[in-house]
């Protein structure tokens, strides 16, 4: 008598297995299939095109009813198996069918994971797994409104795209900072997010769903941060779980999935597991390619063969029309790994290959994926690529060629992009003048267009435009690159950030063709500053790109403790403040209290965990952070001035405090220190500060560009102004000019030397309109910057910074 093969689940994996089996040994088994879904085997992968309307269900059927008839297969549709009796070797379904087996294959697939937030059981909360889900979604699209998709993985994004195509508004909520983070590195994720936004899909990252809102059907969701998004359906696409419960209840060994050996056999010799429900060598797969490979092995085993499945490398493609995306293998970085990155900002292409021992171990391709299969093949084969390493990234068809063009970024700028900010000169003006007048030198270009004739920070770009127009006959002066991640210098990067409207670090790295995937400790803090400065209202500060002091708002000390310096406006304090400091010192047993060179008090040796509590106590006494750690406004030293001093000519203390209150919280390229002295005796040492004021009878003499650290240099005079208001406006405008032009870590005296003292005087003292512009931009930026970082952290921001992740060991646990 024929052996009987029973299969639980009628998905893609057993479908493929049966094709192999019938081809090699037709008629070997009597086959019986139970399927919980009331239908035949269809191509689950193609549900997304069905959802988007690009295909019909009939188009995606793999095995029609005639196929089952032809092979003598009994298919129980809509029959969910509820029990396996291993002793009796039978399975039974919910609708009362019992079948005995000689061999059993469990192929139950996966269950979509539903986050158990309040409201998750409301009508309108859908999963995305089978045709029924698609039909429910299509039903919702007929009613219109907004669909909310939770999870920006492969499934979530395909669902979002389909729903959008069907005319709904779509918002995708994702918990991680970048989308599809399992398959894509951040640069590729950035490009994808941009492309989806262009298709009208709104994506909110770093968002955690708190609850689903609605009385008796979905009305929207509420996020942890309190935001409410209205919507008529919620599609949860946050992950899948192997459907291993049935096997587990039958006493078959399971872990995350049903554990199988290299012959796909479970702990029971008559039972096999196949597809997403199986766990092979610790891995549960969620894509069909590996399942098909193991299906082949299982078919061979059922025939009596001995083939072995050894696991697979997987690759991913996103099925969203018009978006080309490919990722495969393991693209994590590592010391024994090298990466080759190719970025073409104009064409929106990003390619990254990760190599180990001269072999490709991972690949991410965006925009141009034609070579995906070729790379994937080499990953699987472990092909040695040393011979073609230099040209590898250009792909299979590559036939020799030139190195990357450094002028590409400038070439891609629109004609009206502003190149010279000081004189308002745009790209077409420069290119046009070079051609029309036959200019060949930088000086000529400066003379005829005024570009690069003022502060000079656009020189690099102007020179690139000359190369672009004149070809190799023009030899530009060498630019010092920011770091080894880019060829561009600081000034070029800054100007391009503005010209191209780049607003995130990944955007800068992509559009300016960074050579590494995540930058280094040199460029990341610099980019973060430039973005904070240029887009104060839009840029979300990236704390992980800040040096530790600016990340935790205290100064790290040699032993890993921190020092805390509260602001003492203008160096003035009182008994209440001093008492509060004394109390904090006692309470936290702070080992050292010191008067600083900046006229305030430093509390040294505080443990990181204590910082928020110390700040809380200081905050109650009215103290805010002194930003003694910041590339930003530090101190404003003052002397006693007209209030007390017999020589004082103006209220130097008052002006100092006014300046500090106006300017605190601002980020600058390097630290910025001010001082105001009441007379030329200069007791506040104003003439060696970044910006200083010497009060005189006729008004206020503004000084700048002094140094008293690594270099010693007296200040230069900016000019004399009559009133305190004038002094404030000029000083603030000067600070803003420095903020906009200074290179990261460049103190004001170095910037001034580069740009020229006369140019600065011309813009700040001589050009009222320019000055007003600088002043207004500073004021605007302050509306976002003047938030005391200490009180923010006392109220819970960045909590993780100040607590150990875990405490291990009995000694500590006993506390």
């Amino acid at each position, binding site marked *: 008598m024929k052996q009987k093969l029973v299969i639980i689940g009628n998905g893609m994996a057993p479908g493929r297995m049966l094709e192999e089996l019938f081809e090699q040994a037709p008629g070997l088994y009597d086959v019986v299939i139970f399927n919980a879904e009331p239908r035949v085997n269809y191509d689950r992968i193609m549900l997304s095109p069905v959802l988007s309307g690009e295909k019909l269900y009939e188009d995606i059927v793999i095995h029609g009813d005639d196929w089952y008839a032809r092979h003598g297969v009994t298919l129980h549709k809509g029959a969910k198996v509820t029990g396996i009796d291993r002793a009796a070797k039978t399975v039974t379904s919910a609708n009362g069918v019992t079948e005995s087996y000689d061999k059993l294959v469990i192929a139950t697939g996966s269950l979509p994971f539903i986050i158990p937030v309040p409201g998750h059981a409301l009508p309108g909360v859908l999963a995305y797994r089978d045709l029924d889900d698609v039909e429910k979604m299509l039903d919702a699209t007929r009613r219109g409104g907004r669909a909310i998709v939770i999870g920006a993985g492969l499934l979530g994004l395909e669902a979002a795209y389909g729903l959008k195509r069907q005319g709904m508004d779509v918002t995708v909520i994702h918990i991680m900072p970048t989308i599809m983070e399992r398959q894509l590195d951040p640069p590729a994720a950035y490009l994808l997010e941009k492309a989806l936004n262009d298709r009208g899909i709104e994506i909110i990252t770093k968002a955690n769903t708190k609850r689903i809102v609605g009385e008796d059907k979905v009305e929207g969701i509420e996020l942890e941060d309190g935001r409410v998004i209205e919507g008529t359906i919620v599609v949860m696409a946050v992950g899948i779980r192997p459907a291993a419960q049935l096997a587990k209840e039958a006493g078959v060994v399971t872990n995350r999935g049903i554990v199988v050996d290299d012959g796909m056999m479970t702990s029971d010799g008559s039972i096999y597991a196949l597809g997403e429900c199986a766990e092979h060598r610790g891995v549960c797969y969620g894509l069909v390619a590996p399942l098909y490979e193991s299906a082949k092995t299982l078919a061979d085993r059922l025939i009596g063969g001995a083939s072995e499945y050894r696991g697979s490398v997987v690759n991913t493609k996103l099925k969203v029309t018009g978006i080309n995306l490919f990722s495969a293998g393991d693209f*994590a970085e590592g010391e024994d790994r090298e990466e080759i990155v190719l970025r073409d900002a104009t064409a929106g292409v990003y390619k990254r290959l990760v190599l180990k021992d001269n072999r490709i171990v991972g690949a991410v391709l965006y925009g141009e994926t034609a070579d995906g299969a070729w790379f994937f093949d080499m990953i699987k084969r472990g092909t040695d690529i040393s011979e073609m390493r230099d040209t590898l990234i250009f792909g299979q068809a590559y036939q020799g060629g030139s190195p990357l063009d450094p002028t590409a970024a400038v070439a891609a700028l629109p004609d009206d992009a502003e190149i010279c900010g000081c004189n308002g000169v745009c790209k077409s003006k420069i290119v046009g003048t070079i051609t029309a007048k036959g200019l060949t030198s930088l000086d000529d270009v400066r003379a005829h267009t005024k570009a690069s004739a003022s502060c000079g920070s656009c020189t690099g770009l102007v020179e690139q435009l000359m190369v672009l127009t004149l070809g190799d006959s023009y030899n530009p002066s060498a630019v010092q690159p920011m770091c080894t991640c880019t060829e561009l210098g600081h000034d070029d990067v800054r100007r391009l950030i503005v010209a191209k409207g780049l607003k995130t670090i990944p955007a800068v790295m992509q559009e300016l063709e960074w050579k590494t995937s995540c930058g280094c400790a040199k460029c990341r803090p610099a980019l973060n500053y430039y973005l904070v400065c240029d887009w104060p209202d839009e840029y979300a500060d990236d704390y992980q790109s800040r040096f530790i002091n600016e990340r935790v708002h205290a100064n790290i000390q040699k032993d890993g403790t921190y020092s805390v310096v509260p602001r003492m406006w203008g160096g003035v304090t009182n008994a209440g403040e001093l008492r509060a400091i004394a109390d904090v010192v006692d309470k936290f047993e702070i080992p050292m209290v010191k008067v600083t060179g900046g006229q305030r008090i430093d509390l040294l040796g505080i443990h990181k965990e204590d910082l928020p509590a110390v700040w809380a106590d200081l905050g109650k006494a009215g103290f805010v952070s002194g930003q003694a750690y910041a590339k930003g406004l530090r101190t404003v030293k003052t002397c006693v001035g007209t209030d007390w001093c017999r020589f004082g000519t103006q209220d130097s203390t008052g002006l100092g405090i006014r300046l500090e209150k106006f300017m605190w919280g601002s980020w600058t390229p390097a630290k910025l220190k001010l001082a105001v002295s009441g007379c030329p005796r200069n007791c506040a040492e104003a003439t060696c500060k970044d910006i200083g004021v010497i009060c005189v009878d006729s008004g206020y003499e503004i000084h700048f560009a002094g140094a008293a650290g690594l270099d010693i240099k007296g200040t230069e005079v900016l000019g004399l102004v009559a009133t305190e208001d004038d002094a404030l406006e000029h000083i603030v405008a000067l600070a803003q000019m420095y903020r906009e032009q200074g290179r990261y870590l460049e103190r004001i005296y170095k910037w001034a030397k580069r740009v020229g003292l006369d140019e600065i005087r011309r813009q700040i003292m001589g050009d009222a309109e320019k000055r007003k512009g600088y002043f207004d931009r500073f004021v605007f930026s302050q509306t976002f910057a003047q938030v005391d970082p200490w009180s923010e952290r006392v109220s819970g921001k960045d909590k993780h910074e100040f607590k150990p992740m875990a*405490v291990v*060991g009995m000694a500590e646990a006993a506390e």
Partner: protein
Amino acid sequence: METKTIREGDAAGFESGFGMNWVDIGTIHDIPLRGARCVRTPQGRIAVFRTADDQVFAMEDRCPHKAGPLSQGIVHGTSVTCPLHNMVISLETGKALGADEGEVRTIPIRNRDGLLSIAVDTLSLLVAAE
């Protein structure tokens, strides 16, 4: 989609004995991307790092130069730059990169579906408890 192979570290062998024990320390989401957190143990602080592409590493929180707390540094690629004097340390090997010399002791770490555990020496835990 569950496509990413789970990284087991190189320490799977400790599971069964050798005086080592896997101790849960939290989830990968407790650590900021391109960031680090500390774990306190009787033998000292351990720094646990998470890279931009979700790899995790653990090592003693002591720079080989002058004992700077590496957990406070900037994480880039699979390296961290020490906050005190900018030595760059490989998270994978614990070795100083570039011209510098020195090595930090790395700690086996395991990532199972986001749940992190480190291997600690059970014997010394017992000693510490006494």
